[in-house]
């Protein structure tokens, strides 16, 4: 997929309001990125498929309401995805509360899993899940999606300096959640 300028993207969005071919082009361009982002957040293939479907259904349904504010279309899609992930998390929380035989992993098990899956994403995700949703989102976009602060600002609607402060606080919370031994072990890997 070739890179588009903002003006070209604006034209394409205007066409997508009436023409499916234009929407299809946008879908082909952004679907893999949105899918990857949702997977990083929920880490469940079935749930990710459901969320991504809803994101694109909503985008198609409401594209006529989309107002061009010199912000890439992807930012809008990321925001829809974030809202859907929040809805999913709420449902999951309810299910978690309802389930009587859920298995709560102990910290020791986490250490084991860390040793098994050195620096694995799954390991980080386990701790990341314990953070508030907005912090999870910020860390995912910044470290896994490798987005610059300007783009994250477009997605979240916050300014860059606020985001930097928020990210710092989120990292601090994450550091507190991860058990010290595991944290030190993980950092050893980085310094090696």
């Amino acid at each position, binding site marked *: 997929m070739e890179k588009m300028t903002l003006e070209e993207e604006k034209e394409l969005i205007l066409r997508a309001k009436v023409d*499916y071919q234009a*929407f*299809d082009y946008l*879908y*082909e361009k952004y*679907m*893999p990125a949105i*899918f*990857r982002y949702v*997977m*990083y957040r929920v880490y469940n293939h079935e749930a*990710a*498929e459901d969320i*991504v*479907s809803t994101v*694109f*259904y909503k985008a*198609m*349904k409401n594209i006529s309401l989309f107002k061009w504010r010199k912000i890439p279309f992807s930012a809008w899609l990321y925001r829809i995805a974030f809202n859907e992930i929040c809805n999913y998390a709420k449902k999951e929380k309810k299910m978690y509360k309802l389930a009587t035989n859920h298995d709560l992993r102990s910290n020791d098990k986490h250490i084991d899993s860390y040793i098994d899956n050195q*620096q*694995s*994403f799954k390991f*980080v995700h386990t701790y990341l899940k314990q953070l508030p949703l907005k912090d999870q989102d910020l*860390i995912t976009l910044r*470290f*896994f999606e*490798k987005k610059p602060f300007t783009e994250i600002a477009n997605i979240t609607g916050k300014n860059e300096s606020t985001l930097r402060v928020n990210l*710092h606080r989120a*990292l*601090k919370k*994450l*550091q507190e959640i991860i058990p010290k031994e595991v*944290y030190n072990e*993980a*950092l050893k*890997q*980085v*310094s090696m």
Partner: protein
Amino acid sequence: MKRLSKYLCSVNKPEFQPGPFSVRLKYELKNKFLEQKQSRLLPTISVSLVSVLTVMLSLLIIKPQTAYRLNRLVFDNNKDIDYLLFNSQEETDYSNLSSQIRPVATNMQNSPLSMIEEDKSYILHKLRDSSNRTIFYISEVKQKVQPKILY
């Protein structure tokens, strides 16, 4: 905090690929788009049809002649005598033809019928169209109301 950031950057992330799901969703989205388009078209058609019918119906009630003319203008297949148009002649005064007003005109003076009081008067029209077909139609004669003389 920098070390944690570094660590998060160096985490081995799995490469998530949508795979066949992407194609399936694309197909579903296309169907949904077409459904949406149709669902927007149907109410538009039905609303316009209903409004046209409402106009026609109100026209038929308020001004039947206009509705008839409109019908002829649109379809223009009626070469018959437009007898409905004779309604427009209702304003013509035929009352002087009535035997009540002009008994002489009826030629009933010597007939036994002259003994019976006339209740209502009608006019019988005989018309002939271009293909030599005949049509009769009867119209009621409106009797003139005698103005009351106030003393």
